[in-house]
């Protein structure tokens, strides 16, 4: 029912879906994936296809779930990730065997197509500072295992959890670190360079490895599977538009490791806009000439400038985009909150009449609250795809508890003497609820709505991970590209928005407070 509700909302909200759907090109939330996504998009546009960009989707599970259910049509993926993270297969294979295996398995199991590899591998690059390498004479992971007990590791949460990450690596090499800290991809290089950690999980094509002059330790036991990059294509696109698939396949075998490293370096070190990096790359391959100037992804960084300048640029020069994102953010929050209030308040009123059921059911809505945001969004994708619908459903779910809790408590605990008198003087139960309990509970109910609204506005930044836009968009992009100013250009307005919403609802709270109280 919730799904149906959300669908109705989304239809009401959607900007008129075109009949022939554009090709939805997506990426995962890190720089290289952004570049490849943008190259796919520009190449398709150059050949006259209409394209919708959805860069920065949550992580592997979210992007793949979105591809499987047809919410997106293509995104860059890595054979090793397909093998281990998606198929859970740990058999050792050569790069060619690995590709053949994932291509066959994915077609059989999911109907999804792997286009021939793009031409480079991007494996995990366990990296240390140059002086650490010199101090302990580290060249390989076997060397690292020897001194690991005295080193602090900073790994991404993804790496710490994955079969092909830390657990497998520890077994293969007998690694035990003094400490393992989970780090965001956006900060791990700074943390290593700054000496807060001694070992990180880089990607072999990262531009930042060169920037920070790091030493990549060789995988001498061949633990990591081959991570060849390739375009992963949805069932629908492969079936309906072979010409688009053929266009994408033109990139197969064209991007080697050196080229990818250079592109990443331009984006992450030199701070060139992703649209420009991708256009230049396509030009150099003779595949360029887009029919129209590429607009670049939302929140594209504009040069390696200081965080402050980047922030100011986003807030001042890109104020149109800021206004659009703020509006989208507000719409997401307002619609989900309004529906939540429309559902939660009557629900709580029913509970007040069925007190035995009340506490358990209120707790259940509380339990929904504890589902981590990104997990809830991930659950939603197989049901309702990506974009605005799952975002609305998730925000709706998060808004329920404070409203249900406050409404129920407020109505239940409404001035017992007044309630008693209301019964004694001959009000019907419905009149007692409508004329006494509800008005007396109104400020408490409104306080619940207010709490829900502030949580909602904060949580709505996560919506960007599933392509629903809003102020989370520059946060996601900024995290992927290590652009602090970009992150702040989403986070600061989101915080201001939450404050304003709180102030506005505080005024509503005063307005609904009955005069005599």
């Amino acid at each position, binding site marked *: 029912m919730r799904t149906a509700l959300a669908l109705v909302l989304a239809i009401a909200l959607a900007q008129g879906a075109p009949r022939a759907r554009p090709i939805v090109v997506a990426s995962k939330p890190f720089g290289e994936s952004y570049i490849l996504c943008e190259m796919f998009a520009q190449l398709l546009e150059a050949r006259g296809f209409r394209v919708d960009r959805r860069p920065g989707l949550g992580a592997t599970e979210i992007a793949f779930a979105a591809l499987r259910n047809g919410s997106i049509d293509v995104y860059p993926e890595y054979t090793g990730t397909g093998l281990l993270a998606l198929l859970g297969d740990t058999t050792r294979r050569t790069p060619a065997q690995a590709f053949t295996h994932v291509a066959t398995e994915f077609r059989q199991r999911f109907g999804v197509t792997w286009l021939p590899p793009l031409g480079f591998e991007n494996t995990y690059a366990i990296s240390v500072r140059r002086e650490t390498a010199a101090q302990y004479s580290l060249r390989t992971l076997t060397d690292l295992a020897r001194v690991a007990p005295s080193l602090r590791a900073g790994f991404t949460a993804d790496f710490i959890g994955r079969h092909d990450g830390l657990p497998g690596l520890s077994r293969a090499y007998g690694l035990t670190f003094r400490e393992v800290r989970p780090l965001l991809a956006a900060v791990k290089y700074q943390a290593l360079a700054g000496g807060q950690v001694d070992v990180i999980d880089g990607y072999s094509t990262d531009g930042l490895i060169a920037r920070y002059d790091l030493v990549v330790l060789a995988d001498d036991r061949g633990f990591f599977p081959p991570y060849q990059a390739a375009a992963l294509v949805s069932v629908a696109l492969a079936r309906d538009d072979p010409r688009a698939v053929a266009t994408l396949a033109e990139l197969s075998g064209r991007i080697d490791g050196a080229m990818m490293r250079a592109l990443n370096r331009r984006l992450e070190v030199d701070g060139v806009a992703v649209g420009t990096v991708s256009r230049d790359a396509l030009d150099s391959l003779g595949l360029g000439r887009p029919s129209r100037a590429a607009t670049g992804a939302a929140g594209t960084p504009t040069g390696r400038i200081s965080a402050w300048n980047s922030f100011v640029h986003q807030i001042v020069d890109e104020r149109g985009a800021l206004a659009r994102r703020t509006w989208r953010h507000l719409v997401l929050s307002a619609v989900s909150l309004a529906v939540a209030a429309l559902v939660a308040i009557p629900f709580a009123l029913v509970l007040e009449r069925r007190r035995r059921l009340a506490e358990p059911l209120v707790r259940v809505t509380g339990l929904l609250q504890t589902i981590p945001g990104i997990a809830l969004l991930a659950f939603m994708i197989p049901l309702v795809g990506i974009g605005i619908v799952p975002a609305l459903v998730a925000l709706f779910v998060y808004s329920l508890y404070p409203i249900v809790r406050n409404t129920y408590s407020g109505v239940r605990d409404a001035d017992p*003497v*007044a309630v*008693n*008198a209301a019964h*004694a*003087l*001959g009000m019907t139960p419905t009149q007692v609820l409508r004329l006494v309990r509800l008005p007396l509970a109104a400020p408490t109910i409104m306080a619940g709505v207010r709490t829900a609204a502030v949580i909602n506005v904060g949580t709505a930044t996560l919506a960007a991970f599933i392509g629903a836009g809003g102020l989370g968009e520059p946060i996601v992009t900024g995290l992927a590209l290590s652009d602090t100013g970009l992150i702040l250009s989403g986070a600061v307005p989101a915080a201001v928005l939450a404050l304003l919403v709180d102030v506005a609802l505080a005024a509503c709270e005063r307005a609904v407070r009955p005069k*005599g109280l």
Partner: protein
Amino acid sequence: MMLTARDVTKRYATPAGAVNALAGVSIDVADGECVALVGESGSGKTTLLRCFNRLVEPDSGAVSVDGADVRQANEVELRRHIGYVLQEGGLMPHWTVRRNVELVPWLIGLPNAGALGTEAMGLVGLTDNSFDRRYPRQLSGGQRQRVAMARALAARPTVLLLDEPFGALDAITRSDLQEMFIAVRKQRPVTCVLVTHDLFEAQRLADRIAVMRAGAIEQIGASLDVIGSPATAYVARLVEKAGLQRLERHP
């Protein structure tokens, strides 16, 4: 309007076990009479009072108002035609005094609710129309109880149930309101059941007193008879504690 209760019993389940709130109580209240139910807390006096407007449903026995069994009546309708005053007033805090007073006429759907409200406020001595727009919070305790009384009287009920109506007031205000009550009864011949733990108040306001103890009526009779000749040691002790034996000696 005559009120009767016949062999009424009521047991409550409490965490400490079942409690006999009413253990076979019978009482008759004649038309226009005021009977006070006196006793310690837990004696069952409020439970008995609440049987008359079905806020409490007896386990056994029969309760009737004007000869009609209350179980035959619609409980909401029944309550609308019986005035009720609570100790804490129980005014709707979010409503003005005026709206509070007009509540029952409005519930019944009487077209002249406004006039009835004005009349009731006059009866209890709230003649200053500045009260109309004030909220209960802005009133003194005594004023609130006057409003509660006006609210109970507004629909011109013939029966009035009062549960410790002046219990929470200071001595002077209490005395003022007792006088107001006496004055109201002179103008409105209404059948009253008054719950109080104060024997002095009972003899001042009621025609008859029923002393209750452990869910039963220990003694019932004309006010001065109960005070003058207590039937049991318990009643005698109550009278003594209230300091009323002196009143008997110097009437």
